[in-house]
């Protein structure tokens, strides 16, 4: 177990160090997510006022789009430098590599959320500070579910042809339950009369999905990544 965590931690460290040298993925993904929110604003704002109850949906859609971009870029970098193959050749547990990549992805997406959430609060008048902990819980649980599937599929797609288009094609249908629960829970917190029990139910369900997705991904990562 110590060995497992050590390998995962080393992978996280490696990813963060590579990222901190150029900030390529963080900066591009961040800018992309801001433009997505702005495009929604242009589509939905009428006479200077945003449409009602759209903030939660925009937040999660922007997150899904930027998450796909970040996943694609992160693994494209691994592919170009042939580092993923090197990682797989290392005498380390495959599931530990997966956990490391997943944790690195989570750090990245949480950074993006830290900018995205205030931006949505500002532009769409969403009460993001009303239930800060519930909102953070929903976002974190949703991000774990999304990245658990995303990391697995992005890693598998590294060797495939037309991987840029295949990643969203595979990822979006798979993460439908995460999106539905995330949007509904967040909307329950944002609406005029907040529905806390519903938000709590969504959070619990998201955690349940996370457990199943991560377990299944750990289980499939080994045979899928073996030639």
């Amino acid at each position, binding site marked *: 177990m110590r060995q497992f965590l050590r390998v995962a931690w080393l992978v996280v460290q490696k990813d963060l160090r590579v990222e901190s040298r150029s900030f390529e993925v963080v900066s591009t993904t961040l800018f992309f997510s801001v433009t997505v929110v702005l495009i929604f604003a242009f589509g939905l704002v009428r006479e200077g006022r945003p449409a009602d109850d759209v903030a939660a949906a925009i937040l999660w859609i922007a997150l899904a789009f930027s998450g796909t971009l970040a996943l694609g870029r992160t693994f494209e970098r691994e592919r170009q430098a042939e580092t993923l193959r090197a990682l797989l050749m290392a005498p380390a547990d495959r599931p530990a590599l997966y956990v490391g990549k997943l944790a690195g992805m989570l750090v990245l997406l949480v950074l993006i959320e830290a900018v995205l959430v205030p931006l949505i609060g500002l532009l769409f008048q969403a009460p993001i500070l009303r239930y800060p902990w519930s909102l953070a819980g929903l976002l974190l649980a949703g991000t774990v579910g999304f990245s658990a599937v995303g990391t697995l*599929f992005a890693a598998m797609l590294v060797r*495939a*042809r*037309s991987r840029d288009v*295949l990643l969203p094609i595979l990822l979006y249908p*798979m993460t439908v*339950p995460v999106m539905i629960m995330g949007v509904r829970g967040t909307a329950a917190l944002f609406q005029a009369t907040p529905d806390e029990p519903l938000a709590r139910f969504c959070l619990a369900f998201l955690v349940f999905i996370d457990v*199943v997705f991560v377990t299944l991904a750990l289980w499939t990562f080994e045979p899928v990544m073996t030639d």
Partner: protein
Amino acid sequence: MTRVQQLQLALAGAMLAVAPWIIDGAPYESTMGLVQKIFYFHMPSAWLFLIAALVAGVASARFLFGRAPSADYWAVAAAEMAVVFGIITLVTGPLWARKAWGLWWVWDARLTSSLILWLIFVAYLLLRRFGGPGSDKLGAGMALFGLVNVPFIFVSVNVWRTLHPQTSVVPTLPVEMGAPLWFCLTAFLLLFLALMSMRAGLARQRARIEALYLSEEEA
């Protein structure tokens, strides 16, 4: 084509040819009238859609964890069947719903989860077609995830009120309606079995040719 497949195809063709008369003989449902008769094609295809998805999921798991190459042939064949029977379900459903509920589509648990499951299998086929080398394992992982996903989608949408009739109506159907339903289900099942085994045979032959080419190149 084997003898069994020929027999299955011929039987399915004959049964589907007489099916309109049998469905015509069934009594009208009291509130929906004529449109309800689409049910005799809608439900068998929906069931086979789910069965195909299950077969694909189980075969993928066997391919991935049991390392049985032949399981992959069945997974591809079942995935194609899922897409075919899924599209029949998704076309006949809204046609019926337009008359029965006055809406083409509602976002109810059963409809949404069927749509997503269908999308997952379309994505699976796209992956198998355009993914290049290694897409067989990737696809297996995807089919497995897709299948596990279905209950989650179902629960997550189910909080909205549902309009779709429950499957529990099936055993309570009167004989005059039940008999045509089972007749159609048998016809669809025979068609499904014949097509799936033919498709799996095709996949097996492709793999064999591939292996022959490879051994020829090495020699």
